[in-house]
């Protein structure tokens, strides 16, 4: 799905299992926390969780603003 979107629009793939994202052809990849809750962590307080989520989304926006020529995993 990510490949079809990439044909026309820049897309950042936020997912937990990076190798799968690479296999299906995503070019901008942001690793996330866990499969059942990629952008959250139930063991944290709601505020901590939202801050965690914000950090990941900001990294995604940074990825969208970065020129790349090949598959890139944004870890910070």
């Amino acid at each position, binding site marked *: *799905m*990510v*490949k*079809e*979107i*990439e*044909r*026309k*629009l*820049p*897309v*950042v*793939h*936020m*997912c*937990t299992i990076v190798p799968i*994202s690479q*296999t*299906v*052809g*995503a*070019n*901008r990849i942001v690793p*996330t926390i866990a*499969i*059942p*809750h*990629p*952008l*959250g962590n*139930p063991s944290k307080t709601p505020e901590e*969780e*939202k801050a965690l*989520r*914000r950090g*990941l*989304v*900001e990294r*995604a*926006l940074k990825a*969208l*603003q*970065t*020129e*790349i*020529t*090949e598959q890139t995993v944004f870890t910070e």
Partner: protein
Amino acid sequence: MAFRIVHYINQFYAGIGGEEKADYTPEIRAGVVGPGMALKGAFKGEAEIVATVICGDSYFASNMDKATADILAMIKEYKPDAFIAGPAFNAGRYGTACGAMCDAVSKEFGIPVISGMYPENPGVEMYKKSAWIIETPDSAAGMRKAVPAMAKLALKLLKGEALGSPSEEGYIERGIRKNMFYEKLAAERCVDMFVAKLKGETFGTEYKMPVFDRVDPQPAVKDMKNAVIALVTSGGICPKGNPDHIEASSASKFGEYDITGVNDLTSETYCTAHGGYDATYADQDADRVLPVDVLRDLEREGVIGKLHNKFYTTVGNGTSVANAKKFGAEIVNRLVNDGVTAVILTST
């Protein structure tokens, strides 16, 4: 006695109109219409087009079940010996409609069903296992080449003649494995292939391992402050109660939902349809999969121009490569039409 063929075409090839007529409801006309003429010529009397079904691409896409049932009923009276749809070249919705009708006709009447498409057409991946799809160029310029090949394959299937390999007959490999006795023992064939590989010679593997191809990255977003960001997820997040009944695995559809005025996804309003992971945490707070709350903050703070008012969702669990391809193509078309700048795709 000539074979009886029913031909399926869309509103454009029937000369009714383009996009503006894409909601044309199914109609059947006796005899030949549009590209049917070329087919008739190619049949040289061995087969004749007894009726042509015409249906608008948009109508078919949004009323697939009803359209299919209505068309099957229309076709029944003409007692066809074979069904030909298209050729659709690289037209996505037309190709998907041709494929879907071929699938339905072959299941209902058990007769040969043939279409013609460009390999990249989403209809190919979705229906190559239920229909014979002749490989065509990506535009109608290829009509002169596509039609004779479709006619020839149709006649071969009708006469029950043995078929050559996909490349010999000109159809796209359907991915169905059939047993056959070779000349040599499998052991000897394996050692032959081994020697060819060692010597760097070309060889044809007997079984192709599934492998993924690549797409080049898009250029970066220059002006994030005025960018329209859209959210798409394969994590199955949808309004409470899953109104469109997106399947928990091998999803056959995707959902489009409006989030105008929605600043936070709560357990009362949103849930997950996904069957591929423990849904407790997503059901408690769907923001853990679809970060609407954070993106609304970023929108308010002017970091991004706007969060697109619609998000798209499907269940990326066992969804076939074909469906994933179809959803992606359809979703990105709608986003481009809505002026979206870039997409955040979340997966579980």
